């Protein structure tokens, strides 16, 4: 135990602070975290995704997501030749156990990881009747499970299918962008375990974040831009068939 502690002191400063707080069980974010200094988002690099399902499993473990529900999931697309409006999509158990091999030779095949888009103008927070879901000052859409009625209006309002009702708490649930991790200087569980770097947590308010350079130099899209939700999960190399 002592050795561990000593080692911790030589860690990256942010992680070290975080670790002390995690260990102490302090019910607050790390003290050097300021809400106003961040604006969180995520970058998904589709050409890097191998559909291994690590992110889905890690998310379920980190956030205690019940079986059959998903804060993040992976879809496998198959677009035959020019049938861009009619892709074939599958997501067996959210891609949690990966995908069985497929032998389709025509057209193109690729994986698309999905999660809450942490919309700046989110339709889900707009419709919540009591203010139990909201955009935090640092740009994360959260659910207050101690205040949520379970009316399910937000589930209906999300164009991306990111929300569900947790059968244990009977309240709305969704990706929290691992808020308990990112406020402690760690990355999200899904980004942590992604073996190819297809998922990258990004802070749009941090001028040193590599996201800025990436967005300048790549062809990047968001999901369903016609919904005008201000989505903050950016997809690199996304095919037009993705919805």
């Amino acid at each position: 135990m002592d050795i561990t502690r000593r080692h911790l002191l030589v860690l990256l400063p942010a992680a070290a602070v975080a670790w002390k707080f995690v260990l102490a069980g302090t019910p607050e974010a790390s003290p050097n975290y300021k809400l106003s200094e961040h604006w969180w988002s995520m970058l998904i690099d589709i050409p890097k995704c191998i559909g291994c399902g690590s992110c889905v499993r890690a998310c379920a473990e980190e956030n205690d997501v019940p079986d059959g529900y998903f804060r993040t999931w992976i879809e496998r697309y198959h677009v035959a030749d020019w049938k861009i409006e009619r892709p074939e999509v599958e997501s067996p158990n959210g891609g949690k156990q990966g995908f069985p091999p497929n032998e389709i030779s025509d057209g193109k095949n690729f994986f698309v990881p999905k999660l809450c888009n942490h919309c700046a103008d989110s339709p889900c927070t707009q419709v919540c009747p009591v203010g139990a879901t909201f955009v935090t000052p640092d740009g994360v859409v959260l659910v207050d499970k101690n205040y949520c009625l379970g009316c399910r209006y937000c589930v209906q309002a999300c164009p991306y299918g990111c929300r569900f009702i947790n059968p244990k708490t009977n309240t709305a649930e969704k990706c929290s962008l691992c808020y308990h991790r990112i406020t402690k200087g760690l990355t999200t569980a899904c980004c942590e375990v992604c073996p190819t770097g297809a998922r990258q947590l990004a802070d749009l308010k941090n001028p040193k974040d590599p996201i800025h350079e990436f967005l300048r130099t790549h062809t990047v899209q968001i999901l369903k831009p016609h919904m005008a939700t201000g989505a903050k999960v950016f997809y690199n190399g996304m095919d037009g068939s993705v919805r």
Partner: protein
Amino acid sequence: MQIPVEGFMYPNEVELQWSVLIVLYPFITGLVAGAFILASLERVFRVQAVKPTYRLALLTALAFLLVAPLPLQLHLGHPERSLEMYLTPHRSSAMAMFGFVYLWYLMAVLLLEIWLDYRRDIVLKSETSTGLARLCYRVLTLGSSNISERSLRIDERLGYFITLIGIPSAFLLHGYVGFIFGSVKANPWWSSPLMPIVFIFSAMVSGIAAVMLLYMVSTRLRGRQIDIRCLDKIAQYLMYTFVIDFSLEMLDLLQRIYEADESFRSLDFMVHTRLWKSQVIVQILLGTVTPIALLGLTQILKLTETARKRIYALAGCLTVIGIFAMRWNVVIGGQLFSKSFLGYTTYKMGFATREGLLIAIVLMILPFGILWVLVKLLPPWPDAVSLSASGATPAHGTS
């Protein structure tokens, strides 16, 4: 529990969020709004012919309005937190604002109008009745037993004014239910500016039909003669509103078919498969075209009184079924397809579960129980003796 899925759904979409209880909710509020609008015909537009149904329509509206929040409560994951809707209402939420529209309509319109209209009866009954009933009436008088000519005239004028506010309020009540669905941009089956208007007219249709049926049944139960002039008039109004309602729905449909936007292929397939029975057969053919045709028949042909009554009864029943199917198709239909437009899920209604069929049936019977109590407490029909009472003063009800 495996839910049959066809094609691709986002994994969280497989389970339906809003059950049969949420079908009941717009159905019930629709009956309320429709019944009130029928009642206000007599009061504001001075349609003397429908007078026999005035008070019955008001009590029906109240009975259903009291039940309206119950399906919502039962469906909530945390019913004990429902008061938050009033404590911290979110101004941008259609649902939160509906709480206030509901309260306004219940308190400021319906209860007030009934109270003013019945005050004379309440005061008289507080003097003649005994026991618990007496206590009830005493509380309802608010401690003032003044039923002088002048005070009643003031009540009458105030009541008129409230009805005047009540009509837009009833429109607001149900139009707002339409807005709750129509404003969900993520769902192309719901998202439509016509939704509130379609909801208002379908509400009027169902409310008028329900009061018509209730009037027929209650008159028969009391062994009285049905006022056929009144019935003819109601049926006429039913037909007119139904034609408007149907036109609006067809307009919406035509627009969707012609525009054929990204969601069309998916929705069209759904209507032709999973919604074929409930939408095309029950709602449109059986529940809309047939009753309109039947009612049209009574306008064109010279039929006997008995024949007309039978047709009205049949058309009324079909109408109520048709409007229920419409609510079903809106609420359930809007959740059967994936927002990826690539697949469909299935709705499996439980029976004795919290949101199952049994509860739905109980909730549909409950308003009639409440109506029965209300009718006992505040009889809506004038006594045979006082039938000659003039239209301006409230009808006597000291039976």
